[in-house]
């Protein structure tokens, strides 16, 4: 049986850890809209690989530190 998978993230935690970066600042660094950052933090949207890498690069960390793959 195939179990549903889920991608979670620590974007909100990382924003606060990086000098309380605002959603707008992160959106500007990642080249996306603030609404997309909001949707990501709420777990309502799964980004493309390109956007995921851009967000990780904006924080200066690896991809796995931002996004986690969980299986139910």
């Amino acid at each position, binding site marked *: 049986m195939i179990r549903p998978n889920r991608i979670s993230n620590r974007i909100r935690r990382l924003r606060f850890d990086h000098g309380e970066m605002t959603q707008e600042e992160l*959106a500007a660094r990642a080249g*996306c*809209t603030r*609404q997309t950052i909001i*949707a990501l933090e709420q777990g309502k949207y799964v*980004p*493309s690989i390109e956007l995921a890498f851009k967000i990780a690069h904006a924080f200066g960390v690896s991809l796995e530190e931002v996004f986690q793959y969980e299986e139910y």
Partner: protein
Amino acid sequence: MSYWNYRIWKIVIVILVSVLVGWSIVYDNVLIPVPAMTVGIVVMWFLKKGVKEATLDERVFSVADKAAMFVFRIFILLASMAATTIFSLDRDNINLEQAGLTLAFSACILAMFYYLAFIYYNRKYGG
């Protein structure tokens, strides 16, 4: 320019163009509508270029794709059902028959263009 200011200017331009087009319709002026809409589009394009924040990204396109697919499917289904219903109602009523034909051909043409676009993008993305 901030995105908020851009939205305000967009509303102003839309109102201005709408007023011009409406005035043209009332006074049967054929020279105003197309240039007015063209100038409005060009002005909005320049304004959007000056916006500092990102206004479109992959999520917006993803949402637009889903919305378009949903509307397309609903329209094809409803138009087909409406057309067949209209054809079975009263064949002697010219207006009903024209409405049914319009709906039927609209659904067919839309489906045909969707099929062609699907073939194009399928090949473009390695299908």
